[in-house]
């Protein structure tokens, strides 16, 4: 489906090329993936390679008394068995805080924590070797609830005070306050005519990428390691791996292998260090591929959250104040918890003008699975809570919920609770107006029944009995790029040369293509800037500068921007060459259709002739405008690079007797600044919304006393095609003048708003409060859960 493009981009585009910026060329990996021919990291192979495998803790919290590896070492076919004692360099690593051991020692702090690793000539041999490693544990009481974690004097510590490395204390990883206006005092409260409060809970969602963690470490002749791996950020992996191996960074070289989805789950290291350690030890290439079950223990998840909100408003619906407290369970290790807290705190009031705010967000250390990055990154949990509050407030005021939102929506020039002015288009009211104005899908036709259209579908639970329709709305705000003073620049190298008589551009970046379509976008940008047909994408590796992470909706903005800068520099050099050679004096030159073209004088010379045997090879870094850290006590500071917004309307049919839900339609309107690839934009919006739908009605890692109860796709359910409704998408293109081409990051905003929209629709159908996601049939039928 092509998006409806209702606003014209204000930025000038150098040239119009059908497969350039604004076009929708097909992705080079698309057909391969659909046919099962794409080479993923799990398909890597090397002569003489060994198979690595990790022994993981069965306990969520235990002291390690001893590890005996003798039985494993004596098994024929086993080439190495390693524990923490064999780690040559730093014992700890981490994305922001180095608090996670490469291999556990002293204690294990979550179920599935790696304790030992083996390399063997066959995966089955490796598995048997693991069975022969004897670990003696003293099981310790677990800290798994907010109450326990916040009272270490009674319940103890996940990281003892002497080993605590974060910037708060006790079992708190990080906390962030945001206070604006007068804060929330009794005086402020007294100015509100209506007050609504609510306690909300968001379950632990998993990224559920389809390609399990995998990679291949190959020892090099210089004593270094070449690692081929599926990841989101090659350079930050290297920063964490090299010190553990005791190697300088330049001796650890990473190349991106085929990535089967990421969604934040590959920001942290998984098998990287283990494969490298085993390769270093054995001198042989070592491959590690996680099983599906191991994958659930091998990466971080979305933080489960408990949120308390209080909103006050005037009788005519103007928000007066918001007080909120967001507690995120970060699990055993810090991962990206501090940044998730920063997002929850700074975006947790939503896309609304609220004059007085008192917000506290914090993340806990616990013995639950570690949590970190996942699409939406701290903004998802908050959006479920504040959007539920908006519906409650609308009900209390007897107002239309969309009108209440529109009345309080931010717009360009609004000031966020952090004091940051929104200095780019913020058409929140317009998104809501448009999504509400869309025609509703037709009512269920019981005379011409197709079971697939009903809740339960072919499970044949209803032929129309018990079905009630509901409609719900939500809107969200997400930041784009890394925040709080972080300079997450990207680097791109563009080389232009003549091959077979044709000008060919090569793009070399370290950007991780995880399925977002970044390589397609790179080709489009180069075609537009250099007017060439043929663009080759060099494999992503650490031989070029960092591209930053494929996360935070940032790669088209940051690496796309770097490619644009490099391509522009190549163009300038090429035109300078032409001016020197031909004495051109025109100022209206561009590169179109493989030629240098003057707007006034027409085509001048083919690029191939001008370039001849020479090549132009340029590397450029792209930095976004600087941001600042949030003040620790007040949260004040222009901490975000860019904001993005998406609004959703969900239409659901609920079997109110059985508590089963069928989402009938999920309509979205999103402002993307400029759609570089409209087809990919729609794909991102629909994919993000589907992940949000999953959180609304089914996706949860169920944890009891620190133990995961459903580490499989049998019981961790993600939406199938029968759960995924038609999703009409309207795309607005209101350029952000600070961004390349005016574009706005796309991938995360739809993940925020779809969850509360679906739940609001279920509420309308059932009349139930539903303060927790995912909503289960038990919640809809009063049968526990």
């Amino acid at each position, binding site marked *: 489906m092509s998006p409806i493009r209702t606003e014209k981009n204000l930025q000038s585009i150098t040239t119009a090329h059908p497969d350039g910026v604004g076009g929708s060329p097909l992705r080079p990996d698309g057909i391969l993936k659909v046919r099962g021919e794409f080479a993923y990291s799990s398909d890597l192979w090397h002569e003489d390679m060994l198979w690595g495998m990790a022994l993981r803790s069965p306990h969520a919290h235990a002291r390690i008394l001893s590890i005996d590896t003798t039985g494993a070492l004596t098994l024929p076919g086993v080439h190495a068995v390693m524990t923490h004692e064999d780690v040559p360099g730093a014992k700890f690593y981490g994305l922001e805080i180095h608090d996670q051991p490469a291999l556990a020692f002293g204690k294990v702090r979550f179920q599935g924590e790696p304790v030992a690793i083996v390399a063997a000539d066959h995966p089955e041999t490796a*598995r048997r070797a693991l069975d022969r490693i004897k670990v003696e544990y003293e099981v310790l009481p677990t800290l798994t609830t907010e109450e326990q974690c916040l009272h270490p004097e009674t319940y103890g510590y996940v990281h003892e005070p002497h080993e605590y490395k974060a910037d708060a204390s006790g079992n708190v990883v990080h906390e962030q306050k945001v206070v604006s206006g007068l804060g929330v005092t009794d005086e402020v409260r007294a100015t509100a005519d209506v007050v609504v409060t609510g306690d909300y809970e968001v379950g632990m969602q998993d990224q559920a990428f389809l390609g399990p963690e995998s990679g291949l470490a190959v020892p090099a002749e210089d004593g270094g390691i070449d690692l081929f791996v599926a990841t989101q950020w090659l350079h930050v992996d290297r920063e964490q791996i090299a010190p553990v191996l005791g190697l300088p960074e330049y001796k650890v070289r990473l190349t991106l292998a085929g990535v089967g989805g990421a969604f934040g789950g590959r920001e942290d290291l998984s098998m990287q260090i283990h494969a490298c350690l085993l390769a270093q030890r054995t001198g042989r290439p070592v491959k590690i591929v996680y*099983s*599906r*079950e191991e994958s659930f223990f091998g990466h971080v998840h979305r933080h489960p959250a408990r949120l308390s909100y209080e909103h006050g408003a005037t009788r005519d619906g103007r928000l007066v104040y918001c007080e909120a407290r967001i507690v995120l369970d970060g699990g055993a290790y810090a991962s990206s918890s501090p940044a998730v807290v920063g997002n929850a705190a700074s975006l947790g009031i939503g896309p609304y003008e609220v004059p007085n705010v008192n917000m506290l967000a914090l993340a806990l250390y616990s013995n639950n699975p570690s949590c970190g990055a996942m699409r939406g990154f701290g903004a998802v949990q908050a959006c479920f809570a504040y959007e539920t509050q908006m519906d409650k407030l609308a009900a209390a005021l007897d107002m239309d919920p969309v009108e209440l939102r529109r009345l309080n929506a931010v717009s360009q020039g609004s000031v966020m609770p952090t004091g940051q002015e929104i200095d780019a288009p913020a058409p929140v009211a317009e998104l809501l107006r448009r999504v509400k104005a869309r025609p509703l899908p037709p009512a269920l036709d019981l005379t011409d029944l197709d079971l*697939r259209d009903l*809740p*339960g*579908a*072919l*499970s*044949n*639970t*209803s*032929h129309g*009995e*018990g079905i009630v329709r509901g409609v719900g709305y939500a809107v969200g705000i997400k930041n784009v790029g890394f925040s709080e003073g972080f300079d997450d620049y990207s680097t791109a190298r563009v080389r232009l040369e003549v091959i077979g008589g044709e000008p060919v551009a090569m793009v070399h970046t370290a950007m991780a293509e995880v399925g977002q379509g970044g390589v397609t976008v790179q080709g489009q940008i180069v075609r537009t800037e250099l007017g060439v047909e043929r663009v080759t994408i060099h494999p992503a590796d650490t031989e070029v500068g960092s591209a930053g992470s494929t996360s935070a909706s940032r790669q088209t903005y940051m690496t796309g921007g770097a490619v644009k800068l490099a391509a522009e520099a190549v163009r300038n050099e090429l035109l300078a060459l032409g001016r020197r050679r031909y004495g051109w004096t025109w100022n209206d030159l561009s590169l179109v259709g493989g030629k240098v073209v003057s707007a006034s004088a027409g085509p001048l010379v083919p690029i191939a002739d001008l370039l001849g045997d020479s090549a132009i090879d340029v590397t450029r870094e792209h930095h976004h405008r600087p941001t600042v850290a949030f003040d620790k006590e007040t949260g004040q500071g222009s901490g975000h690079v860019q904001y993005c917004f998406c609004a959703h309307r969900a239409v659901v049919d609920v079997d109110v*007797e*059985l*508590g*089963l839900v*069928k989402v009938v339609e999920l309509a979205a309107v999103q402002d993307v600044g400029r759609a570089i690839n409209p087809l990919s934009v729609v794909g991102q919006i629909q994919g993000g919304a589907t992940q949000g739908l999953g959180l609304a*009605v*089914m996706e949860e890692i*169920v944890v009891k006393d620190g133990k995961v*109860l*459903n580490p*499989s796709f*049998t*019981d961790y*359910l993600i*939406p*199938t*095609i*029968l*759960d995924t409704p038609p999703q009409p998408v309207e795309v607005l293109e209101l350029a952000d003048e600070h961004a390349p081409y005016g574009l706005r990051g796309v991938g995360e905003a739809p993940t925020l708003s779809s969850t509360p929209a679906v739940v609001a629709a279920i509420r309308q159908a059932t009349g139930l409060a539903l303060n927790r996601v995912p909503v*289960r*049939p*038990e919640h809809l*039928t009063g*049968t*526990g*859960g």
Partner: protein
Amino acid sequence: MEFLRPATWDEALAAKAEHPSALPIAGGTDVMVELNFDRRRPSALLDLNRVGELTKWESGRFEGQEGEVIRLGAAVPYARITRELSAQLPGLALAADTVGSPQIRNRGSVGGNLGAASPAGDAHPALLAAGRDVLVEAQSVRGTRLIPIDAFYVGVKRHSLEADELIRAVRIPVADGPQQFSKIGTRNAMVIAVCAFAVALHPKNGTVGTGIGSAAPTPRRAAEAEEFIAGELAERGLWQSGALIGPAATRRFGELVAAAASPIDDVRGTAAYRRHALAVMARRTLTWTWDAYTHSLRSAA
């Protein structure tokens, strides 16, 4: 691990006699999951995919069963049951259509469901509802044993096959009345049943068959509910009149079905929800089958 690949049924029986701990595998939709998750490392796998007769079905008359019977080869895939047998075995065909994904339905079979004997197997409720004279045809080098379906399930994932026996086929009477199957999952496709229910009307002998899945240690029938509703139908002359069963009796039927279950709380659902959902499914499926029955009465008149 040994991998045994008999070419014929006789070879398969001989192999099973020689390796009683060998795990039979046909479609592999259960066994391979267990192997991949490292939950099971059998000493041997007995691959039945070369035994062609297991993927055939035939209809005829068999001793000990009244009327026409379908002898369903153990490895006939679910997709074919839905496609080829929805008139003869409508309950089982509906159940087959709820199994996994199209890929799973192309491989999985009733023999596998019986061999795994999981309480969550989708075929079980439909087999139970189809009648007490549904027979599992167990064979070994010692001969053939016909196990009534009610005696087949003996515990959680345990059945009454001997170690040297293989499931050759299931003999299921052709439906003599409407049948229905309903299953709860927390998404709209590809789910293991939270709970499931099957009902079959048997106007020829005036009985009603039921089957409950995923709500007790084994698949089981709701015997009291069957007796209650059969009594209602008989006493009130409803088989003949085709009049409505009415909400009171339908409700009571649902309550008795729920009471027959002994569900647990687990990651897929609560016991309370399972009982509740069984009652709702029982009411609805009974109503659908009765509507179909009265419709057929009227068409016949």
